[in-house]
């Protein structure tokens, strides 16, 4: 079977899953971009105003540099994930704290994401269905996907990648008759300094690329950097376009009113008397994107737990992690709070602990290398 089996020492068994270049790019790009489909956008527009579409382009260079550093670190320890690297570099005690941070990032991030997707379904499509049922259905799907293993998840992501891409393209093209070019004017929105500050405050939007640090051993050898770069660039392009189009259709300041700008976009489609009311056509788009992203997060959380506890399989952690995610999903008292927490946790602050851990690991690796070099010289 193709689930993520790993030994306690961190070396990967020969029968481990294999994730190809395209699969890795698909899963990472979807994971990075999915928040744009929920209410994340609602809090982006008040920051970037008419220039909100520039934010992903400003995030991109920082993300590429950050990932280049992460890739360098991972390449120093071939065949190991970030959890095992941490154990080797900073020891089991400190690394257990690091692993806890990764685990919290993926589980609580999933909680806020699944809650937002479920609220989205509640608002848009199934107003009478209890939210608990909607969350359970999403997490049930994700759990099944993760149970089938990383390879199955990666292949599903690759297949859906094209459907999602086509769906989004269709959505954007169907709104072309509603585009108003003045929607992105004045060009610099809040002004260059405020725009740069907004980009800095939301650097966490790229944190999901961290998933690659947990699947590195299963990726094609020597292609990690390329996978990360292609994923980040693809996600930046997708997110830029998905911010640009609501701006062109609704224009600022109206666009900042909406809780779910992308859903509102589907409701605005008006091509003659027949091509209206077609938001249900895009329902699979939201559901498939959510399922892939939630599965990637659930897999990452279970993989972190398995590797931190030196267990060979991640499957035993699926159910407990799902329970934790469900508990986290029901914790925010309302949708408004969920949106705020989701933005603060995923877009604003996630890069701080993850960035600090990376810095510690990189510095520790460099120090250890220098020590080894000195020993050799002696």
């Amino acid at each position: 079977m193709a689930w993520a089996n790993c030994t306690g020492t961190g070396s990967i068994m020969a029968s481990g899953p294999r994730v190809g270049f395209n699969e890795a790019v698909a899963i990472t790009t979807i994971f990075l971009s999915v928040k744009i489909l929920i209410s994340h956008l609602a809090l982006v527009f008040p920051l970037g105003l008419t220039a909100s579409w520039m934010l992903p382009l400003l995030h991109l260079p920082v993300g590429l540099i950050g990932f280049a550093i992460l890739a360098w670190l991972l390449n120093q320890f071939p065949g190991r994930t970030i959890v095992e690297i941490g154990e080797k570099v900073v020891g089991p005690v400190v690394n257990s704290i690091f692993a806890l941070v990764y685990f919290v990032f993926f589980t609580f991030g999933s909680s806020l994401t699944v809650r937002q997707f479920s609220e989205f379904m509640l608002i848009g499509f199934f107003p009478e269905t209890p939210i608990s049922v909607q969350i359970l259905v999403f997490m049930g799907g994700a759990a099944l996907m993760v149970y089938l293993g990383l390879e199955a998840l990666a292949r599903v992501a690759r297949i859906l990648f094209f459907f999602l891409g086509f769906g989004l393209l269709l959505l954007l093209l169907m709104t072309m008759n509603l585009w108003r070019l003045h929607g992105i004017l004045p060009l610099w929105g809040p002004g260059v300094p405020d725009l740069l500050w907004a980009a800095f405050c939301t650097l966490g939007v790229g944190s999901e690329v961290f998933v690659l640090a947990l699947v590195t051993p299963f990726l094609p050898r020597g292609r990690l950097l390329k996978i990360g770069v292609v994923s980040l660039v693809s996600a930046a392009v997708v997110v830029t376009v998905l911010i640009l189009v609501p701006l062109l259709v609704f224009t600022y300041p109206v666009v900042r009113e909406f809780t779910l700008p992308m859903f509102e976009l589907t409701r605005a489609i008006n091509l003659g008397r027949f091509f209206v009311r077609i938001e249900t056509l895009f329902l699979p788009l939201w559901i498939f994107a959510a399922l892939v992203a939630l599965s990637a997060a659930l897999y990452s959380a279970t993989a972190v737990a398995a590797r931190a506890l030196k267990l060979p399989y991640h499957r035993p952690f699926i159910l407990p992690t799902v329970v934790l995610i469900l508990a986290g999903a029901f914790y925010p008292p309302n949708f408004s709070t969920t949106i705020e927490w989701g933005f603060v946790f995923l877009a604003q602050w996630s890069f701080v602990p993850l960035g600090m851990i990376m810095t510690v690991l990189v510095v520790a690796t460099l120090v250890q290398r220098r020590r080894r070099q000195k020993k050799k010289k002696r």
Partner: protein
Amino acid sequence: MRLLKLGFLLLTALFLAGCWDYQEPDEVAWVVALGLDRGRENLLTVTLQIAVAANIAGAGGGGAGGTERTALTVSMDVPSLLAATELTHAWVNRRIDLSHTKVVIFGRELAETDFSRHLAPLVRFREFRPTTQVLVANGRAEEVLRAAEPVLETNPGKYWELHTGAWDTTGFIPRNGFLNVNIDNKSPGAAAGVILVGVRRDEGGPPDPTPKSQGSYKAGTIPRRGGPQVDIMGAAVIRNGRMVGVLNGDETAIMKMVRGTFRETIKVVPDPLHPGQFIIVQIFPRQQPEVDVRIGEDGLPRVTARVLLEGNIIFIQSGEHYERPERLRQVERAVEENLRKDARAALDKAQNEFGADFFALGYHAKRLFPTWQAWEDFAWDEKFPEAAVSIDFDFQVRQIGLLRETVPGR
């Protein structure tokens, strides 16, 4: 085992349709039109036009002709629109649903004071759609909805869709669905022009057979006898969240031409060589209007709008041989001069009467400002009445119809 799995999967499919969100269409009352007026016994009078689906389905063929009513109209005094949808259940046995509402009509009195206050909150309600048309009644919305009985259609929803959708075949109906109205209403740099609807006048004015443009009227003032009770013509101008005035059909066409939403109109132009006789042309846009905005040294905007049109000669009453290539320019000049006259009237209303930029010229000025704050600080809407605005037209004749020349009758 495989059969068991398949059976389990098929069983789960039963639950996919959902137990909570199922809705039988014949258990729902579909509201096709909504009217909002200042209330008599409460804050608002809300009028609902509800489709009688059974009669629509029974009529068949898409045409009217049956005697059964296809719409039920009911008014009630309530504190808010959504309170009305609940109150309706007191006498309607089906669940009220607004997701097929085609039009929301504001009574003039309400629009003149509280248009935005009652329109803006609708966006939050999931059943309300951005594709819904917003209209202002030249009187009470309640009267319009009571009078609006589809004659050519059996389906009242289709009636409203086709009626408001005629913006692309006439100049005198604005193209302004809810989305456009909401944007113009909330963005600096434009005022909204909302479709004007009215109940046909019962009595004609004093006899006056002098020639008048067909676009010189507004909804509810068109001199006609017979036909449906409701007119749609002209626009209600909304500024700062309330209605500030009304445009007639010709002024509405100019608004659409400058905004770039104009598609087609028929213009009756005085013959330059034969007073009292007319040339009739069909006009289309040639390309999007060219609008140039600059800020003068006095800090006021200088706007030059050039509307590029083309069209076909469809009637020359005098029989003058304007069809010849060397004489087409005479027709073009006559059309341009006629449009300039309409534009002067529209501009006068925009700047001097309403103080409202319903041409949305401000949107063209946004590019001059680097930041949103700078654009807001400029206060376009306050400076617009003092702006130097010129609207010019460039009309070219494309076709002369099926006649190359007119041979005079003997």
